């Protein structure tokens, strides 16, 4: 099988030497020590591993790293810029969403992807878009509030 030798993650080129069939999640976590993306199920059922691939949310646990080569990858580690949190990260803090926080990075990545295509989603749209994510602690209503808050602050920043 072919090898992948370079990945573009959070704007930085990383050298690797992995089988193209390896899961992107495993390469991020185990080879590159980018552990913000989490393993929750390995089957694309929980969303904890979500990253952005060319701007769109992808389940990295079921994405072969070969599919991610030559595409810009954004992980949770890449959202903060010069010490400033991304508005979605800030909104999760402001709504005090987290209990254990293990689902948080995946939720945030999907939200960033959502707000890119739907800058002003309704609560129903938010819930629908995030349906593939599990928060076992049950903080769903706070996550929806955080997404709403993030959408608002991004809208205000644009105007």
């Amino acid at each position: 099988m072919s090898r992948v030798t370079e990945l573009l993650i959070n704007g930085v080129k990383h050298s690797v030497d992995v089988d193209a069939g390896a899961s992107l999640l495993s390469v991020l976590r185990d080879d590159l020590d980018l552990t913000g993306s989490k393993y929750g199920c390995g089957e694309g059922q929980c969303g904890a591993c979500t990253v952005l691939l060319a701007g769109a949310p992808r389940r990295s646990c079921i994405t072969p790293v070969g599919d991610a080569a030559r595409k810009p990858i954004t992980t949770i580690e890449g959202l903060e810029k010069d010490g400033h949190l991304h508005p979605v990260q800030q909104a999760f803090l402001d709504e005090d969403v987290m209990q254990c926080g293990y689902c948080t990075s995946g939720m945030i990545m999907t939200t960033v992807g959502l707000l890119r295509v739907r800058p002003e989603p309704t609560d129903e749209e938010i819930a629908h878009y995030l349906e593939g994510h599990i928060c076992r602690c049950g903080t769903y209503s706070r996550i929806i509030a955080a997404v709403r808050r993030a959408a608002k602050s991004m809208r205000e920043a644009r105007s």
Partner: protein
Amino acid sequence: MKSSRYLLNDHPLTPSLARRDVADSPLLVKEGRLEGGVVSAALEPERYELNARPAYHFGMPRRDFFKVLGGGIAVFCLLDRSIAGQEAGRSGHWSGTALPQDISAWLHVNENGEVTVFTGKVEVGQNIRTSLAQAVAEELRVTPGSIQMLMGDTDRVPFDMGTFGSRTTPTMNPQLRRAAAAAREVLIGLAAEAWKVDPAKLTAANGAVTDPESRRTSSYAELARGRELAKVIPAEDPLTPAAQWKVMGKPLGKLTGREIVTGRHRYPSDIKLPEMLYGKVLRPPAFGASLGSLDASKAQQMQGVTVVHDGNFVGVAAPDPRLAQEALAALNAEWMSPPTQASSDELFDYLKNHAGTADERSGHAVGSIEKGLSDANLRLRQTYTVAYIAHAPLEPRAAVAEWKDGKLTVWTGTQRPFGVRGELAEAFRLPEDHVRVIMPDMGSGYGGKHSGEAAVEAARLAQAARRPVKLVWTREEEFTWAYFRPAGVIEVSAGLSSDGAITAWEFHNYNSGAAAIGTLYNIPNQRIQFHPVDSPLRQGSYRSLAATANHFARESFMDELAHLAKMDPLEFRLKNLTDERFRAALQAAAEKFGWGRTKPHAGTVATKDRILRGFGIAGGFDKGGYVATCAEVAVDSTTRQVRVLRVVAAFDCGAVVNPDGLRNQIEGANVMGIGGALFEAIQFQNGRILNPHFAQYRVPRFSDAPAIEVVLIDRKDVPSSGAGETPIVGIAPAIGNAIFAATGKRLRALPMAPKGV
């Protein structure tokens, strides 16, 4: 002991592990008793919680303490007042050479004025790191964010049984406040001595002591510099009353929030060590299977792969997780499975037929059931069942183990770091001081991570490979080889007088447990009994233990009795209830919900789209907290699907420490409870789990989450209780009662509607 098998069947590497589950649970038993009634934990030790204490606590040399931490001021919190008095002496300063036993926590103000708190409690998503920091900040007059909380590292914190039973807030919180108050007094005393003034005239605020008269100020750093002062304090030091709290009682966001939203926080499964290998364990095809033969030759030929075969344990370690997976797949094992094992289809018959002798201690009787029933005008008898369910913490079990100079260090996710240290010491025949367990804040537990399976397995692989090994369980392993919330059968019968008073109450719980088995309702004749069963599956603690099952049965049955008596369910409860706090919770929830102002009747409230709606109410008491829950459900009469539309939960856990953190716990407990109420169930057959994936085992998702309103009953006159568990107990019966109100159909099995009503 009969109870031992409930928590842990033998792990292949820890053959005598089960022995540790001894019913030594003085705290839980002692404090379960309520004034004027019989209740819950008083009936039976919490058999599903591990409570074993170590045989000895050996002192740590005082010299070493300051050597490790640096100088400053240390306060040690003792459980036993008599020892504290002896050790502290007249001056209140302790100068012994070794630390006394039975220290529960300590606090250190170093020479830079930095405050570090050491506790064996752990952060599992209940946000106790934050609320304990609030407690210390309150008394020490510093900001919560400036306090470092060192938690769950067995080499650095005092022994602690574990984080369970909603014990942290009622026990650790006041202890740390006392330690902080004592440290504050020491600092004030030092300033008074230096300034030659009466300490009573000095004040502490913002990390400094001030003399308001002379306007002199000394920071804690200045006061602590060059000192090696240790103080041992008794348990009864005065605390700031709740009404005067400035830091506690106010919302405070998760202190580690920024680390989490940036992905920087390292959960147990994120730990990485230099030269670390990745482990995999070969699982048997069924519970109870033993290894017949193993051909590991292919795996052994793989570059860098270590294969371990030790009894029934077979595992591999490799420098790369993909290679570890390949090596695992290359193993060729033959297993011998036991003959037929019980399956979920016949589970409830099995539990009834395999009940052991009921333990007298776990029973309770007053009056005469026979008399109570013969006095009754109406009688009812029903059976309720609850399925095995999985905790399914989003972070599965994970551990990184490292051996160095004969000492073993393991980073792992567990609610019982000291318990896991004991498991490791036993498995590897090491003294406990040769084992260190470090518990980074983990991806939740809900009672499901009391045990150290992954820690033991990673340590065994690391021992053989002579390199650190990381082992992260797969989701399927977590669903299969962890333990489950016990299934159960509950039989209830009661009699009612013509005016709706309950005259007799008989309640039998088979297997699921005795937590909150007693009733708060006023009933003159009661017989309540827990019946242990040799469980077909490995079972253990789950958020609120059997309080969920017992409340489901009791509060569903109360609803059935109310309908039998032709009374409103709330009115019926209040008629049979004098407990003020429980009454207040029911009334608060009902008020917020609008109970009684709109009253749907069975099957009659149909909208145009044929959605049947109903309201339900339920409530109860457990672990110091009173809860009442109202739910509104919608049942689609075509698809038979149930949706919980709206929930109001009123909760009284005494003085509220962190209102927003508490709301979060209550909201989350209700969402989690919807899973067990409506659709979560482990299916098993012949020693196999049939649904060990999220695609097959449905947990609540966004579309399942109702609008939740929380009513906090902030009792500043009552000590704070824990809140991570009890808010879950009301939701299942409230939903069941609402489904009955909507459809006229009474559902007596949890989950109630896995495929619709």
